[in-house]
Structures are given as structure tokens and as C-alpha cells.
């Protein structure tokens, strides 16, 4: 089906296919005292050849502008990937993070030369701890998964510090994000997966059965991956703590709860935040992000070094923390990302953050109410910031969740997450965030309802309005071409 939407489609070659010998994109600053290369490099280490493109500045700019036009971001429209919280990224965040002083600030500078940045980091870690209801916070982990890894190292060190060396298992629900089990293994744990209850919440009996003197931690998101608040959270925390295990909060879904409820109050011991989700820092096509970790007061001593501390009016990097797990990332983490989150929290304040979560939940609930008669939502619990609908009914009509995604793309709407969580057949996991207008939510809902009536031929042929038509991902994995020297001859 042809729609008015048409994504840009340039026949844009690769950098190496463009340009001409002799061109250059920069005039280097002068330096007269140029030495012979033999004086600079050990003779056996001198580089002979270097195959790089040769392009002028205008060609390079046009190349990247064209590539950008063949891409879709939250600045183009709705981007309702479930559990990814693709909200609007305020422009002022970038303005502050691009400050020339920060751009030339070296991580080995003495503390007295970086007081302003340390103050921002301190304020951010304190604000995050307050939002989470936790005791102390580190900003060091570079992403959510790095935060999980950090949190589990803290759990490991905590248990060992008490002589509790048997705890080698981490429990995760079957609906957990894939990073949870992967991080647990990296931290040296065995993963125990438990089934979700029929309504998508934690099956408290299954949890109790899995808990033992070998359990180091239980990792969950709340709201769950299905966008459902864990009603049994009080029983869950009691069961975990009774068994001597720690309770870990995966902050991927925190956008439902800011100013409404706090993981710390629910009994979580460790949590991470995704600044690139909840706190409006851009995803950058995959990163960089930032995954701060906060802990309850009894675990504060185990946080990575250094911790930013305030002594009077002076901010310091405190390395003298004997119980610390050490480090998980070079220097202090992704500071440029932290500055963006600091800006967002300053602008929103306590009321704005709370309102953002309310609007995120309102928007998700609104789409659900518009489509659930056609796309069943398998669990009846109220929706928080996201929900999972099923496109299973389309199987009889020659369609699938993936086909729905491609049809949405043809209408200039980014699809939701597909096929996750695995416990819902043909899952469409929808998280609109607080940034979308009611009109955009209606446009998206109308599109989904229209797509439900597509013919098998229409499903099979989409997308046609995107830069390329359906991409052969199987072929990509079968005949690996990972750089421009690996194209077969005929190209």
C-alpha cells in the first residue's frame, strides 16, 4: 500500500568509493620542525601503506547529511520501542554538554581545576539517589548492562564480606531483559530462571522455591517487562531478604515511577538507572549511554572508586574506600552523558519529573485503550509506561509481528519492540513515552488498526517507502561482509 510517507533514498556510496586522489578535508596547523620518519619510529615498525579515503570537506558533509536523512530518530517522530524509553532529547542538554571547557577537560586534571564538573556530578548522584529512594550512588558504569554488572559485583563483595561464600546463584524471571542473565554470568554467577505467573507478574511460589542459601540476588524490573506493577513486591522483598538474598532493581522501566514510588521504599537493595532512557540523553544509534548504580545505606562502602564527595564547599574524588569493589570503567564514566541528565533534572525539578512519569503512563494506557479490542493484551493488569499486545491473530491472515513493524515503517512510524518478551506470542511491546502528542498517539493507533486488515500480499511486500525494502538479514549472517574490502568481486 502506498502512503504519503517516503524516506530519503540516495544512491550514496561508501566513503572509500567517493573522492579522488589528492583531496583532503583539512588544512593542518603548521609545524616546521618535521623529522624523518626513521628518527621517529623503530625501523622494523615503520608503516608502509595506508589505505584511506581522500575527500574534501564539502563531500564529507554531504555524505553524512545524506546518511542522516536515510535514518529515523526521535526527532523524526514516534519511536515506541518497549523498554527503550525513546523520549524527546531536549536540545539544551546538548548545548551544555558541548561546552568547550568540558570538551578539553582531561580526566587526570587535579581536583581543584574541575570543581564545577564535580559539583554537577555530585548533584546528579544525589538527585538519582533521591529519585530511587536509595542511600548512595555511583555514576561510573557506562550503560545499563554495565550497571547490572557493577551491582552484582557489589552483591558478591557484600556476601563475601560477611563470610557468606556459598551464594553463587542469581535468580531472574523468564521475562527479564537479556542483559540480566548475561551480566550475572559475567559477575561469576549461575543463572536460575523462574517462570512468570499467568498475569505476567513474579510467581511468588516459584520464587520461594528457587531461593536458597545459594541465592546472591534476585533481579527484576518493576513495572515488569509487560508494563505491570508488581503487586506482590512487599512479599517478594520479604522472601528475598529472609533467604539472605539481595533484591536488584533493573532501572530500564523507571520512567513509570518518578515521583510516584521509589525502589528503595519497596525494599530494593541495589538498582541501576539508564540516563539514556529515563533522563533524556540521546541513544546515539546505540550509545553512548550511562548506567549509574545506587545502593541502600548498608552497601554504600562497596561502590566503585572514586566517589564524588562534598567537604564544605569543596568537591573531591574519594579513593580511600577500603570495601570498594574497585573500578568498572575508565576514569569516571561517561561524563558528557551525565551533564545532559543533570540538565534535564534541573529543568524538570520534582514536579516535572513526577508529571513526566504520569504522562508516560497516560500515553501508554491511551494507546492500549485504542487498540486492545483488535490486538489482545494478554494480561488484564493496568498498564504503566508500556504494555505488550499480541499480533498472534494475524497468523491466520498471513501476517506477523514483524509484518506489522514493516507496515508501520511504511507509514513513517517507528515500530514497537517485536518478539520480546518471549512469553507473549507475536509480541508488540509498546512504550510511547511522555513526549508524544495525543494526535501522534491517535495516528499510531489508527495505523495499527488499519494494518490489522492488510492482505497477505500487502504484508509480504512491505516496506516500500523506506530507504530500502526488506533487508536480507539471513544472507548477511551467511555471507559475512564486515568491511568494504570484503565485498565480492562483481560489486
Amino acid at each position, binding site marked *: 500500500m502506498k502512503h504519503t510517507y517516503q524516506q530519503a533514498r540516495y544512491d550514496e556510496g561508501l566513503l572509500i568509493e567517493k573522492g579522488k586522489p589528492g583531496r583532503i*578535508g583539512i588544512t*593542518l596547523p603548521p609545524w616546521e620542525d618535521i623529522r624523518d620518519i626513521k628518527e621517529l619510529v623503530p625501523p622494523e615498525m615503520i608503516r608502509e601503506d595506508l*589505505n584511506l579515503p581522500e575527500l574534501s570537506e564539502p563531500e564529507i558533509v554531504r555524505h*553524512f547529511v545524506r546518511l542522516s536523512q536515510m535514518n529515523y530518530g526521535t526527532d523524526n517522530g514516534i519511536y515506541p520501542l518497549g523498554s527503550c524509553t525513546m523520549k524527546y532529547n531536549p536540545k539544551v542538554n546538548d548545548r551544555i554538554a558541548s561546552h568547550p571547557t568540558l570538551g578539553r*577537560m582531561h580526566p587526570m586534571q587535579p581536583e581543584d581545576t574541575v570543581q564545577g564538573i564535580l559539583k554537577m556530578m555530585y548533584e546528579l548522584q544525589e538527585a538519582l539517589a533521591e529519585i530511587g529512594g536509595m542511600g548512595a550512588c555511583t555514576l561510573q558504569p557506562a550503560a545499563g548492562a554495565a550497571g547490572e554488572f557493577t551491582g552484582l559485583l557489589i552483591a558478591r563483595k557484600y556476601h563475601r564480606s560477611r563470610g557468606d561464600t556459598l551464594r553463587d546463584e542469581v535468580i531472574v524471571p523468564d521475562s527479564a531483559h537479556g542483559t540480566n542473565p548475561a551480566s550475572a554470568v559475567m559477575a561469576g554467577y549461575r543463572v536460575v530462571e523462574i517462570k512468570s505467573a499467568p498475569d505476567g507478574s513474579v510467581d511468588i511460589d516459584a520464587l520461594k522455591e528457587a531461593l536458597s542459601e545459594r541465592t546472591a540476588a534476585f533481579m527484576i524490573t518493576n513495572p515488569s517487562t509487560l508494563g505491570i506493577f508488581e*503487586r506482590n513486591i512487599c512479599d517478594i522483598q520479604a522472601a528475598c531478604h529472609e533467604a539472605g538474598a539481595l533484591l536488584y532493581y533493573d532501572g530500564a522501566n523507571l520512567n513509570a515511577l518518578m515521583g510516584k514510588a521509589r525502589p528503595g*521504599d519497596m525494599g530494593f537493595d541495589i538498582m541501576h538507572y539508564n540516563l539514556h532512557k529515563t533522563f533524556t540523553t540521546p541513544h546515539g544509534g546505540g*550509545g553512548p549511554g550511562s548506567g549509574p548504580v545506587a545502593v541502600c545505606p548498608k552497601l554504600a562502602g562497596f561502590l566503585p572508586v572514586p566517589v564524588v564527595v562534598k567537604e564544605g564547599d569543596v568537591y573531591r574524588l574519594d579513593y580511600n574506600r577500603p570495601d570498594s569493589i574497585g*573500578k568498572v570503567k575508565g576514569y569516571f564514566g561517561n561524563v558528557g552523558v551525565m551533564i545532559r541528565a543533570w540538565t534535564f533534572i534541573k529543568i524538570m525539578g520534582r514536579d516535572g519529573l513526577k508529571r513526566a512519569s504520569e504522562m508516560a503512563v497516560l500515553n501508554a494506557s491511551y494507546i492500549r485503550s485504542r487498540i486492545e479490542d483488535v490486538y489482545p493484551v494478554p494480561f488484564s493488569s493496568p498498564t504503566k509506561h508500556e504494555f505488550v499486545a499480541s499480533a498472534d491473530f494475524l497468523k491466520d491472515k498471513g501476517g506477523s509481528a514483524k509484518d506489522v513493524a514493516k507496515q508501520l515503517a511504511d507509514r513513517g512510524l517507528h515500530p514497537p519492540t517485536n518478539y520480546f518478551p518471549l512469553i507473549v506470542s507475536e509480541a508488540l511491546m509498546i512504550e510511547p513515552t511522555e*513526549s508524544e502528542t495525543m494526535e501522534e498517539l491517535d495516528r499510531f493507533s489508527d495505523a495499527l488498526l488499519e494494518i490489522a486488515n492488510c492482505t497477505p500480499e500487502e504484508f509480504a511486500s512491505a516496506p516500500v517507502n523506506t530507504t530500502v525494502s526488506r533487508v536480507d538479514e539471513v544472507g548477511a549472517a551467511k555471507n559475512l561482509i564486515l568491511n568494504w574490502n570484503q565485498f565480492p568481486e562483481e560489486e
Partner: protein
Amino acid sequence: MHYLPNHSNEKEMLRRMGLGSIDDLFSDIPEGLRVDDLDLPPGASELEVLREAEGLMNMSKGGGDMPMFLGGGYYDHFIPTLVDNVLSRSELYTSYTPYQPEMSQGILQALFEYQSLMSDILKMDAVNTSMYDHHTAIAEAILMANRINHKQRFLIPEYLTQDKLCVIDNYVKGANISVEKVPFFKEKGIMDLDGLSNMLGPDVSGVYIETPNMLGLFDPGALKIREMLDPRQVFVVGVNPMAMSISRPPGEYGADIVVGDAQPLGIPLSYGGPSTGIFATSMKHVRKMPGRIIGATKDSEGRRAFCMTLSTREQHIRRERATSNICTNQALTSIAASAYIATLGKTGFRQLGIQLASRGRYLAERINELEGFTAPAFPGHFFNEFPVKVDGDVCKLLNAAEENGILAGINVSAEIGSLENIFTVSTTEMHTQQDYDKLADVLKASMEVIS
């Protein structure tokens, strides 16, 4: 509330949904767990926050406010304006990991180009789109070596920063890998290959070496390590990618994995992050590699297209059996590196590399002329960073230099006990002749203060 379009039409939406109040949407949260107000300041206007941020930035200093000769893997290079311009394209920077390839060809092609450029620079077949930084890239390389040969001892250089060591220690805990240090020649500042030979054995998983190393010195020993190992043992090389402009790429001397930090290639210092951790390997080992990889393929019309590939290694599919837990990475800074390399191009990259090393030579000679300094402290070749030996207390010297408005270098003696009174100085094209003169004057004056 200017980020929240539905703030003003909440009632209409609730009415359409048959609800009375926003609280109805949160009724499933047990009452005892609800909070009324966070203990945070109220919101502020954009102008107020800009003013506050400006004030805080002015309380800080960077390379533009005082001559700075700090390196250690992160360098204050010039960033061409077009690199900032590319990164400000919001279709790119506000996109997610490209799970829908048909509408994400721009970011996919840009990342494929990054992989290709880095592949040519390192002479390695397969480059992932990024690790978090050099530190975690080394750590992931050690884990990958363990996946390749299931051996539990891994050898790293004696001269490695504490910052890197601490990160590695945490990453290898889960796999129970024992990380051991290969000794260095005290009088040469490079790896002692006889010492390495004595440590090798059938239980060794792999060896890591850096060139240029922590002191800034090229280490020619790197060329000989592959032949000291058996084919199953994994040879990992850490580089400053900028130095690849004049020194041989590790792919030419048998590296199985190459790691590094792309920060010198057009990425702002930003007080240490974000940057891109470089991670490259051979096709033989690509299925054991952590991180995201972009592949070229075709669309249903036969046009060239790009998509993520080999995803079955990754956490969202393989879960606890994934090669790594990494999900969000550093894709945007990889694109900065790509735009930067394209800007310099074949000739500019080489010329800049020669200029940087020439500046290093010049500066070392200047410092060596001063009473009480030996530069370089060891006889080898170096790139844009070199060790300086001080006749006196290096800590006091650097403090005295700071008092005089210069950050003269990094005190490596504080990190490696056996290196006495040595600091490293690095230079870039940002330095002017006046900066060099000032450094020489301040070092001379500081030496007089501490003597």
C-alpha cells in the same frame, strides 16, 4: 512542562479512556509505597539552567584555559568543525540501536564505514561498533581469549595504569582468570621478552602488550610475540589509533585481537568519557567477539543494504550464554572517529602522525636541555608522549608547575612503584610555540623551587 505536550489535554484523554483522574492509572501501586514529593528543587527555566551551567563550567578549567601536557591515552587534539556538525544531525543521534534496518540505513552505513576505516587502520578483518573504552576492551579481550582456548592464565604488561588494572580485575573475576604481569626492562621501559618467555606455558590463554605503551614508547617486542605463542594462544595488542599513521598495524604482525581508545580521533575529552573502545579481531575468531557488528547485504530488490549481524552472540538472544552483556555501546563516538578519519584522509592522517611525533622529539630535546631533567628517560622511540626523569621529587615538581599555571604531565611513579621520579609529557597540534616555551620555563623554575 514544555517537554510534555499532553500536560494540558490530560482530561480529554482520560475521558476518552473512561477514567476520571490520573491517579486511577496508579491505583495498582500499594498505598504504603506511594510518595508525595521528592526532596528535589523545583524546576527551572532553560535560561536559568544555562546560566547555572555556565557558572559551573567557569569554575572549571580545560586545555583552553592553561597549557596542558596530560596524555595517558586521552589527548587534547583539534576537532575539525565538521565532526561536530556530523554529530549534531539529530536523525542520527536520536536514533536507537538499528533493530529496524529498513529505516535505519544511515546509521548502519555510518557504522559499517567506521568498521571499515578501523579495519584498514589496524589491518584487522572484523571490528565491532564499539566497547565502552580502552579499559573494558582489554578486559573483554581477556574474556574472549578464555572463550577461544579455555585456559585460565593471561599475561599483561607490568607497566599498565592502575585505572586499567582495576577494571580488568573486576571483569575477569567471573571467569576465574588469573592475570599475571610480564616484567619490563627497568632501563628500557619496554617489555622483557625473556621474562615473558619464562612465564609462558600450556596453561597460558594469551598475552597483552601495548605499543605505544604506558610511557609513550613504541615497543618493538610486539613484533616477536606471535612466534613465541602456540597457535591456540591469543595475542592481544593495545594501540593509540593515531600512532597507526606511522607505525605498523598489529594485523601485520599476527595480532588475534586489537584494542584501543578512539578518543584521539575527533572525540572530545569530556573529562574521560564518552569515547569509543576499539575492538578488532580476525574472521577466524569473529563468532567469539563481544559487541555489535554491522554487515552488508541486499534488500529484496537487490540493492546494497546494511543490518546488524551475528546477533546470535548477543545478550538479547543468547542471554546467559552471550559473549558479553554489552547492549548500549558508544556508537555515536565511533561515527565521530569515522568523520574525523575521513577528514584527515590518507595524506592528512600520515602528515599529522609525523607532525605529532616530530613535536614530541622537539619537546623532549627542549626538556632534556634543562638542568635536572632527562628526556626521554629511556632510549627508545616514542609517538607524542614520552617519559621524563627528574632529579628530585616528581610529585613536588608537578605541584610546583601547577602553581605556575601548567599541567606538565602525569606522575607515572605514583602508579608503578619501580619507576622512580618519572612523569610522562604528551603533546598535540593544539600546543603553540609559546606553550612549549612556557613549559620549559616553568619546569626550570619548578626544579629550582624543589631543589
